[in-house]
């Protein structure tokens, strides 16, 4: 692998990502805006519904689900299917560069942007609401990166099964919105009736939210091993299917 070219491509794709205002809004601004809204309404005082934790303290790790969903379920699959439809991937095949680099660059850019989105949210919460962090640094980073990988695998599957951009957009929205609103990634799952919580349990992002919250609040990784195993299963299946089904043109 030629790291120099991979880096150049990643830098360029990163610039293109930031020139897309929709990406910038939903990834970098929207989570902070929602936090300001909920934080503004409920403050960050300990609340019974959140087991004695503050609204903001539980929301920040939960919003990781929101941020990862934007890059993993929207940006990644839509860009890949756009590049395929516009024959950009094919154009790269007609160079010494393997088009795999385009995918590597896309993973790199989206991963980086996911991290940046999370950091921005963290900073907003810290400055405005006096956010508390009760966990350990390493487990939180590990669960965050693992969750990102897992949701990205779903994004790849969308790119692999969608025959064109229209279909990819339709599938992405169909997957993204439930993941955004029914999993606790935006609206706290604790506020939902029991039946909805049961439905939520089958959505992968629910488990991202659950695991992130747990390690953020200082619980051990082992305490959410079920959720993490489920995400691992999803990752393996989705990547396997994506490799089988993905077409360059």
């Amino acid at each position, binding site marked *: 692998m030629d790291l120099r070219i991979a880096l150049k491509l990643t830098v*360029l794709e990163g610039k*293109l990502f930031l020139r897309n205002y929709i990406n910038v809004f939903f990834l970098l601004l929207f989570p902070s805006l929602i936090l300001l809204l909920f934080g503004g309404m409920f403050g960050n005082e300990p609340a019974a519904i959140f087991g004695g934790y503050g609204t903001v303290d539980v929301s920040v790790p939960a919003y990781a689900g929101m941020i990862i969903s934007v890059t993993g379920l929207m940006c990644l699959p839509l860009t890949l299917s*756009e590049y395929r439809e*516009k024959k950009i991937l*094919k*154009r790269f*095949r*007609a160079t*010494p*560069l393997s088009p795999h680099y385009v995918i590597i660059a896309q993973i790199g850019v989206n991963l980086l942007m996911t991290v940046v989105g999370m950091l921005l949210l963290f900073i907003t919460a810290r400055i405005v609401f006096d956010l508390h962090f009760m966990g350990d640094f390493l487990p939180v980073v590990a669960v965050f990166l693992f969750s990102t990988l897992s949701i990205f695998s779903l994004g790849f599957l969308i790119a692999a099964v969608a025959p064109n951009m229209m279909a990819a957009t339709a599938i992405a929205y169909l997957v993204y919105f439930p993941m955004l609103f029914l999993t606790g990634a935006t609206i706290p799952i604790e506020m939902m009736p029991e039946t909805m919580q049961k439905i939520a349990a089958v959505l992968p992002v629910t488990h991202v939210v659950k695991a992130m919250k747990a390690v953020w609040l200082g619980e051990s990784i082992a305490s959410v091993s079920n959720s993490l195993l489920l995400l691992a299963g999803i990752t393996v299946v989705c990547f396997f299917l994506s490799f089988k089904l993905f077409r360059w043109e």
Partner: protein
Amino acid sequence: MKMIEADALTVKYGDLYAVDDVSFNVAEQEIFGIVGPNGAGKTSTVECIEGLRRAHSGRVRVVGLDPWRERRALYGVIGAQLQDTAYQDRVRVGELCKLFSSLYRNPASYVELLEIMQLGDRRRALVSTLSGGQRQRLSIVLALLPNPRVVFLDELTTGLDPRARHQMWDLMLQLRERGLTIVLVSHYMDEVEAVCDRVAIMDGGRILVDGSVGDVVGRFDLLTEISFYAGLMQPGELAGLAGVQSVERQRNRIIVRGRSDEAVGAVLQYLGQNSVAYSGLVVKQPGLEEVFLELAGYRLSEASSTAAGERGR
């Protein structure tokens, strides 16, 4: 020297033969045209030669390389402009050129190439703001970056306005002067006549006829059309002249069809000697367009008489 050799090339999609036993050679500094209707197998043929598609059978060599097995080496010596490729949204001309330059070991200077392609002042422009012609010229810049010996242009001028098309033709001839070999895939017969040294007409995955443009046209027994205004003349007067095959009148216009030079000479002589008052005389030599129509008509009648449905389409 042969830059491209294709021997009994076949491409299959499922049971369908998209390219069926196609053979041709392209010499150095030649402009080789592949023409034919949609679905004729032109792009499939070219994609095999470009290493983008695997042939079902047959042998292909490009500058001595096997395009499928030696792809990396291949992309150092060929440049490709693919049919209707778009580029990333919001990418700038300069950024794209810089990226593509970094893919090659000894790339040509993209600054110079942009200058040659009259895009020098568009480096900071978003690719999405370029006109159709500018975008195609950018595609050529990218295709020329590896300092290639062979360039493939697939429907380069489709969708361009007439001025941009003529500009592209001049460009192709200039590139050939610089030592390049060009393979041009086109729908347009006038384009092929304007720039190509040799041409292959494809349909149904096969090459129906190939050779120099003059040869190809000469191989068909096509008639020259001489027409002029002569209100007072009876068409029958010209019927017996040497080389003349048919004469008809369409309103005020007399239309004579016949063997090229013989008929033209005879008609002009007759008009002169008999002091016929005529005007607006036009001689239309048969070209590739006529060859193509002849072939198309030929195939149609062939298809209806032999109960179609075998291999091919």
